[in-house]
């Protein structure tokens, strides 16, 4: 129970800080869901930078973490009346419906499974958990543990936001247990669902599509995360970044959106190595999309620089840490071998149809259609490029590609499928009720 209360308390602090910064920098976020989700991602990124900063100056996390909520009252993030968006119809959560009840029930079921530790990711035991334990014991980053030459199996070069978050939860709760970590997966599920709900409402899709999308996306995510054991793992973070990024690339461009794109990209980059290319694709996609709007190149360039600033800091700190301690693992990459393509595709064919997906992997093949649809093309391109990155990794890995595909492909698909489901419902909305779905769908 202590771990649950601590997780909720830290999540509250993260939301408080992030909400202030997000609404200050991107005040025209159209829905409350968007504000909550993007605000929380802002909070996570700021918490990550805060903990890294404490580590750099040698302040124990158990002391410095309690100052973090004060960032909400930093002179910058106070809501500025002159930048506040006018009240918009979708700025509230909207009416409650049975689909919300279904989503909440599924999240509750996932919470029970997680509380019982029935669905804990093996990688939590193999490396995320041990790293978090060591950070908890060290009251900060245990560089000696990460750099130990006999410890390469813990992937010391991976970004460390997740174990830092787990360790912080343990430090605030005065004990590190698996529960100090796994409840965060419930938070990531809830935020992913909230992001999808906000994206569909922002589009002002027909109500039945919003409800249908909410049920399908929550069911699919809960299904896979339970059966394929995702609690405590880092794949949730990429899934969340994908749906949040998809929501932003579907929404009409707005002043301040660059900061939100930057927060999502920085969050992805802080989560996993796979998040670094995702961050790059998100930034490039945002910039290209903006450049097609008729804005002056200087304006587009400024927006791109704004969007890139936060991810650049996160990625820079990661590279600095990895280089400084010599952590990069040679096993991460090898020479590209196109001759493996047949073998990799054949193995992918069997890995994708893992029973845990119940055939849902098939929706990946809708990506070409979503690439054509005007509303979803940039989000679909993001998912397609991310998927192709995974294919590239399989073709260039120095380890056995068959084993790698079999053990990772189903959960790498988890990064993409909730976002693809979201795109499908957005595309359906445009098809079944053709009307002005906003700036981008109109093609202005």
């Amino acid at each position: 129970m202590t771990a649950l209360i601590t997780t909720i308390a830290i999540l509250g602090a993260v939301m408080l800080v992030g909400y202030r910064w997000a609404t200050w920098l991107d005040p025209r976020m159209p829905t409350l869901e968007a504000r909550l989700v993007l605000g929380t991602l802002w909070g996570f990124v700021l918490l990550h930078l805060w903990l890294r900063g404490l580590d750099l100056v040698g302040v124990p996390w158990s002391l410095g973490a309690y100052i973090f909520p004060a960032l909400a009252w930093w002179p910058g993030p106070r809501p500025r009346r002159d930048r506040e968006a006018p009240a918009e119809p979708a700025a509230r959560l909207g009416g409650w419906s049975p689909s919300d009840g279904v989503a909440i029930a599924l999240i509750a079921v996932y919470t029970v499974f997680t509380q019982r530790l029935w669905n804990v990711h093996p990688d939590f035991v193999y490396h995320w958990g041990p790293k978090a334990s060591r950070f908890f014991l060290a009251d900060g980053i245990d560089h000696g543990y990460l750099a130990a030459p006999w410890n390469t199996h813990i992937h010391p070069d991976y970004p460390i936001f997740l174990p830092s978050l787990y360790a912080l939860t343990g430090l605030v709760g005065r004990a590190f247990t698996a529960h100090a970590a796994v409840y965060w997966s419930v938070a990531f599920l809830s935020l992913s669902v909230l992001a999808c709900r906000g994206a569909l409402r922002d589009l002002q899709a027909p109500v039945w599509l919003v409800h249908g999308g909410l049920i399908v996306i929550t069911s699919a995510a809960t299904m896979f995360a339970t059966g394929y054991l995702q609690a405590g793992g880092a794949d949730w973070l990429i899934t969340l970044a994908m749906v949040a990024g998809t929501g932003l690339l579907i929404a009409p461009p707005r002043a301040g959106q660059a900061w939100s794109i930057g927060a999502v990209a920085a969050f992805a980059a802080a989560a996993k190595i796979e998040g670094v290319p995702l961050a790059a694709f998100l930034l490039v996609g945002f910039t290209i999309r903006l450049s097609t709007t008729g804005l002056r190149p200087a304006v587009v360039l400024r927006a791109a620089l704004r969007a890139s600033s936060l991810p650049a800091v996160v990625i820079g700190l990661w590279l600095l840490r990895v280089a400084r301690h010599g952590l990069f693992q040679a096993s991460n990459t090898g020479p590209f071998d196109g001759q493996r393509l047949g073998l990799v595709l054949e193995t992918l064919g069997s890995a994708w149809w893992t029973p845990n997906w119940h055939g849902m992997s098939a929706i990946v093949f809708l990506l070409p259609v979503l690439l054509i649809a005007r509303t979803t093309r940039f989000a679909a391109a993001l998912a397609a490029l991310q998927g192709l990155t995974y294919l590239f990794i399989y073709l260039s890995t120095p380890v056995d590609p068959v084993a790698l595909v079999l053990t990772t492909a189903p959960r790498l698909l988890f990064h993409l499928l909730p976002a693809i489901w979201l795109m499908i419902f957005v595309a359906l909305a445009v098809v079944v009720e053709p009307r002005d779905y906003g700036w981008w769908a109109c093609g202005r």
Partner: protein
Amino acid sequence: MCAAFAAWSVGACALELYRSLWLVAADPWAADAPSTWRLSSSQVSRLEPLAEAVRARLPAETPVTVSSVLRPGEAFFECLWVAYLLPELRVRCDGSTTAASQETFRVALGASGPAEDCRPVLRAGVGSLCAYGSTIGLVAADLPP
């Protein structure tokens, strides 16, 4: 189409939850396949008394290696479980067999028993601890059938 998607996803989710509950109840994870163990499985619970005893005996940061009767691939995963349960210690899972000069203790799982030069220190649950040189070491009892 929307209703079909919803029926598909809710039905699949219900099946997956049922399957997960069945697996939890059946607890089918074999002792010799730690790569398949789950955190809530009984195989992990069997390791915990040994981990508790070792933790009580050894100071933090003590170097420890793990020996196992399992084939190398599974022995590696068994070592990862020990490392997870003993984060305070420097549990080495790199498979090095030439680090005896550096290793102070060894956790022996199953019937692997201590090496000749490793002095038994304690026995608990599914394993034991033995010490090298003038220090201690860790070795264990047999795996239950």
